[in-house]
């Protein structure tokens, strides 16, 4: 992919002058979300000064009430679209942004709140709110890419601050960000973690999950929860088959896919296949789903 970054300007002194004259304007936007991903930006304590030296933080309400109007060179968008009002607002954000990056599972897949997509949202309103008539919400929680063109998606719940800095550094240098889309397993093996599924029989979503967290959970002898969403070529049917072999009930396997990335296509289809199997008895989870080789 191409990153139309500030680094494309003329080299040397002219470049330095251009940088001094106008730093790229950065905006951070919140939609339906918990604020955890934009907090990752504030958590970059050691790098914040370097960042503010390279960009003008023009709009970032979690950090400052001083909001500068657009247009913005880079917009970081957190959260999903859950209201008609936000569906309009994201279009205005897009118009005001040259380069739009979505950050986190809510913005890239719809978030945990997308669990509503598979139920009747009115039932939730009745169950949760004393006065449901005050709530104005859409039937589904959808990712930003369902509404506007997105230039780069950074997965994770929450995102990894080192990856966020990599995306911003790449933008500033005019290079593609070094964000890989392979499995969490590669991160486990690089750091020398013993596989929890093979050595403990602990169910783990690592083989179908996007890298980026540096494989934290298996390092603490826990299975991967899939916080970073589907990897580039997830074979959920085969992994579900292995979980079944490890003794995990069908409904529990389905629930494992139904967390913060429940609306990501691969995880949604995996859960639906398992639920159909559960409902229909001997249904099909997909190719290879029921035939993990007994150890």
């Amino acid at each position, binding site marked *: 992919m191409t990153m139309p970054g500030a680094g494309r300007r003329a080299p040397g002194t002219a470049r330095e002058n251009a940088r001094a004259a106008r730093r790229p304007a950065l905006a951070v936007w919140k939609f339906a979300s918990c604020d955890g991903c934009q907090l990752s930006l504030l958590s970059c304590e050691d790098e914040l000064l370097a960042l503010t030296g390279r960009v003008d933080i023009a709009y970032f309400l979690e950090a400052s009430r001083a909001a500068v109007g657009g247009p913005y060179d880079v917009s970081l968008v957190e959260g999903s679209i859950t209201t008609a009002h936000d569906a309009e607002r994201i279009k205005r954000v897009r118009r005001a942004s040259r380069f739009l990056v979505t950050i986190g599972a809510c913005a890239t897949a719809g978030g945990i709140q997308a669990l509503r997509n598979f139920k009747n949202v009115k039932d939730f309103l009745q169950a949760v709110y004393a006065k449901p008539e005050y709530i104005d919400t859409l039937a589904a929680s959808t990712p930003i890419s369902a509404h506007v063109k997105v230039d780069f998606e950074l997965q994770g719940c929450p995102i990894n601050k080192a990856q966020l800095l990599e995306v911003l550094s790449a933008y500033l240098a005019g290079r593609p960000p070094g964000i890989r889309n392979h499995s969490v397993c590669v991160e486990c093996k*690089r750091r*020398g973690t013993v596989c929890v599924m093979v050595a403990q029989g602990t169910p783990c979503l690592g*083989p179908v999950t996007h890298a980026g967290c540096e494989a934290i959970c298996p390092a603490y002898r826990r299975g991967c929860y899939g916080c970073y969403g589907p*990897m*580039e070529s997830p074979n959920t*049917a085969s*992994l579900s088959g292995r979980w079944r072999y490890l003794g995990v009930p069908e409904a529990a396997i389905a629930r494992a896919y139904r967390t913060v990335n429940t609306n990501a296509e691969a995880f949604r289809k995996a859960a639906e296949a398992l639920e159909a199997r559960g409902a229909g008895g001997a249904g099909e989870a997909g190719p290879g789903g029921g035939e993990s*080789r007994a150890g």
Partner: protein
Amino acid sequence: MPDPRPRTLRALPVEGLDALLQALRRRGYRTVGPTLRDGAIVYDEITSAADLPAGWTDVQDGGTYRLARRGDGAYFGYAVGPHSWKRFLFPAATRLWRARRAGDAFAVETGQEEPPRYAFVGVRACELHAIAVQDRVFLQGPHVDATYRARREQAFIIAVNCGQAGGTCFCVSMKTGPRAAAGFDLALTEILEGGRHEFIVETGTERGADVLRDVPHWGPPADAPDAIDRTVARAAAQMGRTMDTADIKELLYRNLGHPRWDHVAARCLTCANCTMVCPTCFCSSVEDTTDLTGEHAERWRRWDSCFTMDFSYIHGGNVRNSAKSRYRQWMTHKLATWIDQFGTSGCVGCGRCITWCPVGIDITEEVRAIRESETATVRQDSRPKEQGDA
């Protein structure tokens, strides 16, 4: 590389094992060997013989690994685990260089630190072969890899002849074990027979003989050659897997369109675990990075895999989009095109790819399925045999 010298056999009491480690540490080696961690026998720094997993073994099969008590005090009574020596000779992440902006140009600074002097303790025969395979890749081609060479040339190797094979071992099929034939400074055989527990140590190099001089040892037991033979014969009889390698290159070349590739692709997670644990897989990616200031750049090399999409990405897209094409690429490279490329098989029969595949895909079973379908086709003179899951 160490100089070969005539082999001599000596006896080493079990207490001598720690003296051997200390002799190496006094010489400035970082001693690395098998040790218990997180439910497995991994390779990590060991400072004394007490760090070795004495009395433990492993139970391995496709996609499963469990530790178990042996019932004796064997120091090396297990097969290979999730780690290989690759992680020390060819680190998972290496900074190749770093650079700083200097006016309109940039100045390259050395990025690599002085590599540690490793002494590897407990290197199995299959692993010696794996190191020899990587030597061909990194040292014997037109481009010598400086990172690998710096670690490899200094490494002191204590091999161990296997007296216990694992459930996924097939070194006998690959003719790589269980006896260490070459490529070591010292080779140990742990003799555990009746009440007898001692080591027979074989010197492979002058450097090995020099270290041994600092360790209490004595003349070999009268039955030394036979005791070694008995020990490795026991392991050879325990192989958990076999692979018929006859004509294997042509077998795979004839069957690039075999339906078995679809069958294995349905199970393959494309997670890359098999390539990460393989002691001969050498693929890596080189990634450049810059920091926020734009004043610093670094070039890193990291383990990569033919199972990732980016690895076979070229202008316009990925040349191996399907799991089928990626598994076929890996297996045919390992067992067939490797022979064309380097003159040996890329597989040493260690069984790691079988054990550490989360869904237990078995390379020996895949070869067998393709081979048997051919003989079935010839025998029945009709359609290929249906590919069932063994």
